[in-house]
C-alpha cells in the first residue's frame, strides 16, 4: 500500500502522527505531515487507515 499527503491541503493538525507515528512524522517547522514509510508495511496499514480517516483536511491518500 502506497501513501501520499497533499501538502497544499495539509494544515498541520498533526493528527496523522498521533494515529500512525511510524508512518507519519511532522515537519518540525510547520507540522505538515512527512511520510516516513512508503510503501506502508502491512502491519501498519491499519494505523495508516486510521490516519486517513482522522485527517480533518482529508489530505492523505492510500493507494493499493
Amino acid at each position, binding site marked *: 500500500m502506497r501513501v501520499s499527503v497533499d501538502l497544499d491541503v495539509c494544515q498541520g493538525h498533526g493528527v496523522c502522527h*498521533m494515529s500512525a507515528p511510524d508512518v507519519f512524522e511532522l515537519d518540525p517547522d510547520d507540522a505538515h505531515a512527512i511520510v516516513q514509510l512508503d510503501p506502508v508495511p502491512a502491519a501498519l496499514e491499519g494505523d495508516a487507515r486510521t490516519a486517513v480517516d482522522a485527517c480533518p483536511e482529508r489530505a492523505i491518500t492510500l493507494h493499493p
Partner: protein
Amino acid sequence: MRIVVVGASLGGVRTVQGLRRRGSDAEIVLVGDEPGSPDGVAADRPPLSKGFLADPSAAAPPLVTAAELDALGVRLVSARATDLDLGSRRVALHGGEELAFDALVVATGSSPRLLPELESRAGVFSLRTAADAAAVRTAAHEGARVVVVGGGFIGAELAWTLSRLGHPVTVVEPLPTLMVRGLGSRVGEALTRRHTEAGVDLRLGTAVAGVEGADRVEGVRLVDGTLLPADVVVLGVGTVPETGWLADSGLELRDGVVCDEHLAAVGAEGVYAVGDVARWRAPRSGEDVRVEHWTNAVECAGVVAANLTGTPTVHDPVPYVWTDQLGGKLQVFGRVRPQDELRVVHGDLDGSFVAVSGGDGRLQAVIGFAAVKQLLPYRKLLLAGATWDEALAG
C-alpha cells in the same frame, strides 16, 4: 445480518465506510435526512464557519456520494427516522416504511440550540448545515451588520471570519470571557482581548432579550435595553442531541444516548451510538461525557465499526478541537478543566503560544495558538499520560 445506521453526517457515513473496510458483509442501510441536502447526506461541517463562509465560490460537497455508497453496497434511505421499537427491532421512518435491524447505530447528531428570545425571522440564522451556511453567506451582503449570539468556539470563529470580510461584527455572550469553557479563563481572557483589538465589538456578561424588526431582523435588543442594529444575526449557542425520535424507545437518554465505554447503548443489545448524540463513560477520565467535536465523531465511527466486526474496542480518545481565528490555528488537545492550573510553556498569550493545563498530578490538556511545531512535544506527553511535573519539564 442487517445493520441500520440512522444519520448520514460524519459519524454515520464514517461508520458505514468503516464497516466495509473491516470486511463486513452485512446488509447495510444508511438513513439520512440532512436538511437542505437532496439525498439527505450532510456536508463536512468544519469549513462551513471558515473557508466556505468567506469564499462565495466555495462548494460544500456531501461527505459521500450516492455512487460511492452504491459502490460500497450501502443502501441509502433519504428519510427521517421517527421511532425505534427495541422489542421488534425496527426503526420507523417518516412516511411509514419500517426497517428491521439486527444491529443499529444511532448517528443522528445534534441540532443547533435555539433561544426563545430570538424569534425566527428573516435574517436570523443558525449555522449547522451547508444550506444554513449558504443562507448566511447570501444574507451577509457587503456592509451588512452582523450580530453573533454566543461566544464559544463557533461564535468566536464566526465573528473572526465575518469581520475579516469587512462586516461590523458584535458578539453577545452571557459569560465574561470568550471560549472560556474550552480554553479556561486565562487563555480565554487573552484571546478575548485580541478579538477586541481586532475590531470585534464584544458585549460580554449580557444576554439577548429579543429581536427588533417586523419582517426582517433590524436589530437585537439586549437585556439592559441596548439595541444592536443588525442585518444578519447568527446563533452559536451550542447544540442539543437529536434524541427526540428515541423518546419512547426505552433507550436510556440523558442529554444523549447513554452508552458504555464500547459505545454500546446501555441495556439494549446490538445498539450503538456515535458522535454528538453519544454519551459514554470515558475510561481516561471516568466521567460520562458527550463531545461535539469533529474528531470525536470520526473516532466513534471507527470504534463502532470495530465492535460490529468482531474486534471489541473501547472509546477512550484524547479530545481534539481546532478553530481558525485571530490569524492562526488554535488547537486544544485534552480537556481544560476549570480547576486546573495553567502554564504558558512557549511564547506568550499575546502572540503565538503553547499552554499546558494540569491537575490531579497529571497533564490534562495542551493549548496551542499558531504554534503547531512547539505544540508537538507536549501533545506527545499528553498522549503518553505524562505527569504534571513531566509536562513542566518539557
